[in-house]
């Protein structure tokens, strides 16, 4: 087995776990049953080898990797466009098998924080050089952030809704874990946060938009920040992992055939059960493949603007990823910030009108919109003309009427918004009903 070895900062933990015969990130040469890992260096980037073609890992070429030798990826890991893996020589990052880091996820091995935050982290037993350890079957969804030291999917145990030996942890859109521990079988809902010094115990999930800053808030649902994990959450997590391990399998195949096809403006990989065909983006009416373009535009995307116009209109680290749901039709862009994400589910297109303004870190996600008025299902996600999406706004399976504004860090989930509506900052709507505020 090649390329599997102990790495940088992880060598210390290797030594420790060797003694316990629980080995992570160590060589098969040690003579123990090991979980093979690799660091995304040199020949291992963007494809980390596996024992077979089907258990390789993939790191999108746009991923920012710092101190790659201090990062370990197990098998079947998918790291999406513009994710950031920021390790340090003294603080590594480990990603377990079948985990995925979706578009614009940030994992920072050692994040700066104030004295109070540092003390809280230390009290949790996390050393400042412990880095970030992400267990197997962890989902870091679009735009989520992990600030080290932190552990995700470590400790705790099985729970009644998920009695299987495996486990899952789900960090939803725009969520954050900062100097905290998330045990096995936990989760953070969209735009939720777990702050320094907190342990989220097995069986709990942070509610959308909630900011958990004390242990009491993490342990007591009566305080309104967390709820109990259910069988539905487990079913959701298992399905999401199945989807993303398919990406880990198919993107290396696309890379095998044509390395430039996983860069810049490129076709989608196809070959998955949910998206069989490969399609090329069309910009200003012209089918375009541009591996050197700084942003990722993948698959069946029709942009009204030309490539030359997009050079000036788009920020950086933008991922328009039609590798699952398609097509995306995107009208003229007034302006677009950085770290913007477009993604959709199988057979669920996205339609965006003209003169739309996109702030930084906006997420637009399609997928089977089900209007509660007027009927229909699997309706496209629609953003009409003249809409303004402020920084960190999330539009998910929704219809945003013309001239509307979605506030900063607000999320619209399966919701129809009438023309001219202004949604305040930090507000979440689900199924056309006010769900709550984003607390941070």
């Amino acid at each position, binding site marked *: 087995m090649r390329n599997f070895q102990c790495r940088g900062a992880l060598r210390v933990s290797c030594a420790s776990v060797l003694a316990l015969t629980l080995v992570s990130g160590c060589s098969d040469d040690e003579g123990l049953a090991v979980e093979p890992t690799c660091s995304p260096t040199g020949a291992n980037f963007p494809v980390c080898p596996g024992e077979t073609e089907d258990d390789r890992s993939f790191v999108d070429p746009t991923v920012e990797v710092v101190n790659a030798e201090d990062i370990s990826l197990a098998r079947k890991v998918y790291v999406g466009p513009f994710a950031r893996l920021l390790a340090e020589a003294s603080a590594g990052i480990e990603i377990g098998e079948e985990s995925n880091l979706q578009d614009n996820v940030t994992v920072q091995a050692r994040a700066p924080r104030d004295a109070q935050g540092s003390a809280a982290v230390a009290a949790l037993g996390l050393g400042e050089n412990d880095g970030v350890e992400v267990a197997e079957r962890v989902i870091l969804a679009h735009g989520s952030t992990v600030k080290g030291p932190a552990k995700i999917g470590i400790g705790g145990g099985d729970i009644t809704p998920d009695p299987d030996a495996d486990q899952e942890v789900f960090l939803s859109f725009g969520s954050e874990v900062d100097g905290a521990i998330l045990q096995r079988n936990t989760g953070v809902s969209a735009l939720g946060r777990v702050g320094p010094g907190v342990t989220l115990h097995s069986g709990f999930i942070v509610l959308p938009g909630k900011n958990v800053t004390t242990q009491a808030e993490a342990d007591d649902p009566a305080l309104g920040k967390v709820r109990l994990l259910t069988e539905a959450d487990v*079913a959701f997590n298992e399905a999401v992992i199945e*989807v993303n391990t398919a990406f880990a399998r198919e993107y290396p195949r696309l890379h095998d055939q044509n390395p430039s096809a996983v860069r810049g403006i490129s076709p989608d990989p196809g070959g998955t059960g949910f998206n069989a065909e490969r399609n090329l983006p069309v910009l200003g009416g012209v089918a375009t493949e541009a591996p050197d373009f700084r942003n990722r535009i993948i698959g069946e995307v029709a942009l009204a603007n030309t490539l030359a116009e997009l050079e000036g209109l788009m920020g950086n680290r933008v991922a328009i990823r039609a590798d699952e749901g398609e097509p995306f039709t995107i009208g003229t862009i007034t302006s677009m910030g950085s770290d913007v994400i477009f993604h959709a589910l199988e057979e669920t297109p996205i339609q965006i009108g003209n003169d739309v303004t996109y702030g930084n870190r906006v997420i637009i996600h399609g997928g089977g919109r089900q209007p509660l008025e007027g009927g229909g299902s699997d309706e496209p996600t629609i953003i009409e003309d003249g809409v303004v999406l402020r920084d960190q706004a999330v539009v998910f399976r929704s219809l945003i009427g013309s001239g509307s504004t979605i506030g900063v860090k607000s999320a619209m989930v399966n919701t129809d918004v009438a023309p001219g509506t202004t949604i305040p900052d930090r507000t979440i709507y689900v199924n056309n009903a006010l769900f709550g505020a984003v607390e941070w």
Partner: protein
Amino acid sequence: MVDHRVALTEVLLAATFVGCSKSHGHAAGAGRTAAAPNLSATLEDQSVTAQGRPRWSTYWKLCWDYAPDAVGYELQTITSEGTSPELRQQGDACFRLQVASGTSRGARRTVEREQQLAWQSANLAYRVRARFPETAGAWSPVVPAGLKHEAAVSSPP
């Protein structure tokens, strides 16, 4: 501010189910069972005491008509993050899933229950088809988990 289209109440949310009109029917087996299973979904509430603390759960129960000659059924999980390529095998014509849970009481329990049902229904759904010895039936419509769904008039076998 928020207009009429986003000012719906929880009552509407709980009582309104919008049928999923799109069927992802497969050609395979279409002649054998062109009609999708006749789906109904109900909610069941349950309270228990665990480790001295009261705990409630709401279960979503999806049922469908037995298909003649079927050897079983397959469910596909459709999430806000993607459609699972794996199919869940099911022998019975019902599938039961815990969709909400908590320890609260009274009015707070009601609010928490409704919020969890809303969230799950926006993020998780299922479709089902019959499995025959050599082939599979057509997919049913997609039904969001956590929402009630009234069965239509039974389809002829």
